[in-house]
């Protein structure tokens, strides 16, 4: 059996990748994907703990997270398309009309 710590290390690596991508990328699609990566990193740790402790709560959380992530992707992609249509760019640094 694979020890719990392996899962957690993998989960941490995934999360760190997501954070790094979120921080350094300018393309909004990539940023979006980094968020999904972070969510899935967390999901992995949830599932790992659920399996380890034989508790269902962790798996239920994962479902919730997936539902929220799906809804977020739907709304987010719609916004991205709308932004692209009006601004013809996907660079977040150029989408700054609301900044002071």
């Amino acid at each position, binding site marked *: 059996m694979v020890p719990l710590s392996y899962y957690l290390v993998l989960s941490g690596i995934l999360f760190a990748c997501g*954070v790094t991508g*979120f*921080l*350094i990328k300018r393309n909004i699609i990539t940023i979006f994907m980094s968020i999904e990566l972070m969510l899935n990193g967390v999901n992995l740790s949830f599932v790992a703990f659920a399996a380890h402790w034989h508790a269902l709560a962790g798996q239920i959380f994962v479902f919730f997270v997936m539902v929220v992530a799906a809804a977020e992707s739907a709304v987010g992609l719609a916004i991205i398309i709308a932004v692209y249509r009006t601004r013809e760019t996907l660079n*977040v*640094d150029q989408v700054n009309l609301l*900044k002071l």
Partner: protein
Amino acid sequence: MTSSLNLWLIPVLPLAGAAINGFLGKRSSRTAVSTIGLVFPGAAFAWALSVAFRFSSLPQIPYQEYVAHWIRSGSFSVDFALYLDQLSLVMLLVVTGVGFLIHIYSVGYMWDDPSYYRFFSYLNLFMFFMLTLVLANNYLVMFIGWEGVGLASYLLIGFWFTKDSAASAGKKAFIVNRIGDFGFLIGLFLIIQHFGSLNFVEVFDQVRPITPETAGAGLLTAIGILLMVGACGKSAQIPLYVWLPDAMEGPTPVSALIHAATMVTAGVYMVSRSHMVFERAPMSLTVVAIIGTLTALFAATIGIAQTDIKKVLAYSTVSQLGYMFMACGVGAFSAGIFHLMTHAFFKGLLFLAAGSVIHAVGGEQDMRKMGGLRSYIPWTFLTMLIATLAIAGIPPLAGFWSKDEILWKAFSSEHGSWVYWLIGVITAFITSFYMFRLLFMTFFGDYRGIQVDERGKVHSAHGPDDHAHGEPHESPMVMLIPLMILAFLSLVGGLVGIHNGFEHFLAPVFGAAEVAHGAGETSTGSTELLLMGVSVTVAFAGAILAWVLYVSKPYLPQKVADALNGLYVAVLNKYYIDELYATLFVKPLVEGSTRILWHGVDQKIIDDSINDAADGARHVSDEVRQMQSGNLRSYAGWIAAGSALVIAYMIWFGVGR
């Protein structure tokens, strides 16, 4: 008490007049303003007269009238309540009577002033406060009146406030009075602390058993001296007299009413009202007597060299007030009040007549530019002559009786001494001299005023008399009639003092001591006659000296002045007292306030600390502001770093269970 005198009407009537004129006067005609301004004090006078007629049939004297309750705090209570005894009755009649006459006079004197309604409003307001002061049944209500007359005085001295000198004279009067009021207030606090009341009856009941030998005597001395400090401020005694001569910047009726006849005598009234305290504290009596005597002499000598007709009268007022305090200081309170009354008549008259003179010559106040006015303004001359004779103490006019009474008491009373008497007689001589000097310079010789065109003179910037001016002319009847009534009072006002009539009338207030003293007079009758002869002689001597110097040999005064060069210059400059005060008190205060309080404390400490705090906040904000860049990734970075910190903390230190 079944029948009420409704005393409260007396002060409230002028207050109503002040309110009506103050609020509505601007749009009313002059006739309406004068009607309101005269009817209300006139009604107060009429009511005071009716009170006087019913006075003897009162079931209980002092009569007290409760108006409204004011302060109730534990066992200590102060009410708005009025108090009428022989003393306040005399004051009441003097204030309403002389006040009403001066109101009538003002109609003529102020007629051309653009702020006519304001003048009458202030004047009525003054009457309200003065009557409150006189009728109060406790020290606190008296203090309301005391401060109120100070306010009215300030407003009226600075009546022509566009003139810088008038505005600063008003401020000077107000500030110098504050010094006195400080002493008065501390005295009141001492009374509250030790007697638990401010009511005259209650306080004096507790004071009565104290004798100079018992333990409370030192306390009474302190209270007495503090009250005297207050009286020094209000009644212009050394060392606080400096405001009164400057107060002559006000309109002349104001000088007559406030700065001669009524307000400045409030101090004498207050000391007499507190006679129970002073009599039991001989040291404070001595202080009163010394201050009064010195002031009488000091101010009289300054009066010799003044050339402004109103300034002479102002110093004369200070000097006469000194006489009143001298009387109080030797325990002869009724003599002091007697002189207060006659002084109100003749000094009020002198000021009004001086106003008439000023009116006649077109606003000129310098006596060197008058002269020979006798034939131009005969009625003014006649009334002024009577007043001068009265103040000089020529029998049988009013001033003779009261001044002689004071001098006799100063000599013979148990607290008196021949020193007071001697200084008093010297002062009487000087008084007679400078008053006749004023009379001769103004009314005798040739007219020295430059007529019509040369109107840019120093003293001529007066409101009411700025009309084009030809020859000196007599004042209208509305001004002359009050002069005549006051002249009549100055003629006969002293007769109430014959056979100590006035003293017996006031005896219930000032106690039996004085009446018993009066009984002893028969044995010393010859001494009294001798002293009376001396004072009459010096009065005539002063008049004759003035005649020689200013009428028969007009070249002499200059020679005398040259001969006494240094002394003359000192007197002419009022002994440099104003300059001395400026150097000793005003300058250090102004400098200290400017350097330490303003530049140091206010600017350096208060302003700078606030500015520095604001600057610091701005600098910190400028730095912290950088965090909120609007850059999404930097926010995310902060969140990530923060989370990492929290997690690291939890790993190292546990989750805090």
